[in-house]
């Protein structure tokens, strides 16, 4: 087992374990902060998947942006209700949750089933990519490539996303604005 593999298993374990903690935790605040751990571990996984730029973007956007936003939001939505919410969940396995657990587990089984059925190295497009040396190596710096790609090949989605972001910002600001009289 090399160091990289060890790191992978560690990161994968942390990801899944913290995810499970989120799922079963009674304490909302802790589950939010545990989400932070999940995100950091995922960033680690991205690095191991040779996407360092994405990993850092993940930290900037998710940790620096989304997570802080979420924490902000529940801090704004009042402590009393939060306390109520925290109390009402008493047990992990409750009869109400059983269908959800069943569904999730079945989904997992289906996906794993598909995964094990597939021979990834035999897929034609992967073989083709390997043959054409179209795979990312450990020492490749992809930022330049991604940057050029964003401005040329993916310009249309890039622009569309920027417009969408703009609209989302304006929309969010509009929705959460204090209205007079209500």
């Amino acid at each position, binding site marked *: 087992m090399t160091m990289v*593999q060890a790191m992978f298993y560690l990161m*994968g374990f942390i990801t*899944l374990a913290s*995810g*499970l903690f*989120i*799922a079963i935790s009674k304490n*909302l605040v802790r589950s939010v902060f545990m*989400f932070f751990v*999940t*995100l950091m571990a*995922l960033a680690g*996984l*991205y690095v191991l*998947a*040779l*996407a360092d*730029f*994405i990993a850092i973007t*993940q930290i900037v*956007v*998710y940790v620096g942006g*989304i997570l802080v*936003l*979420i924490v*902000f*939001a*529940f801090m704004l*939505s*009042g402590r009393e209700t939060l306390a109520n919410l925290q109390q*009402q969940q008493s047990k992990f396995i409750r009869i109400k949750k059983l269908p*959800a*657990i069943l*569904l999730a587990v079945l*989904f*997992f089984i289906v*996906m*794993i089933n598909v995964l094990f059925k597939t021979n*990834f190295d035999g897929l034609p*497009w992967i073989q083709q*990519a390997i043959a054409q040396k*179209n*795979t*990312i190596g450990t020492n490749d710096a*992809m930022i330049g*490539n*991604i940057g050029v*790609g*964003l401005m040329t090949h993916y310009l249309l*989605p*890039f622009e569309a*996303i920027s417009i*969408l*972001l703009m609209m*989302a*910002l304006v*929309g*969010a600001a509009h*929705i*959460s604005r204090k209205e007079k009289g209500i």
Partner: protein
Amino acid sequence: MISLSDFLIVSAGLFCIGLFVTLTKRNAIQILIGIELMLNAAILNLIAFGKYDRFTNSGQTFALFAIVLAAATTAVALAIILNVYKKYKTIDPDKTDQLKD
């Protein structure tokens, strides 16, 4: 090197956890977190496959797009949650069911 299927298994697990969180939680913010987990599972998939696209980087680029989109959805979702809270004084999705029938 870590094989592709390893990433996919982690991703599948994460997705199912997200699914579970989304379905069971009684708090809109936690549901949002569940959705984010599912999104992250998808991004992990994109990146794992993106390793086989060195020249056009489609996997990584779309992972970027997905992250940015997640930010946008979160902003809007949180704004909606805040409004719901203002109106119903609760963010339990089961109690905000005035649209039924």
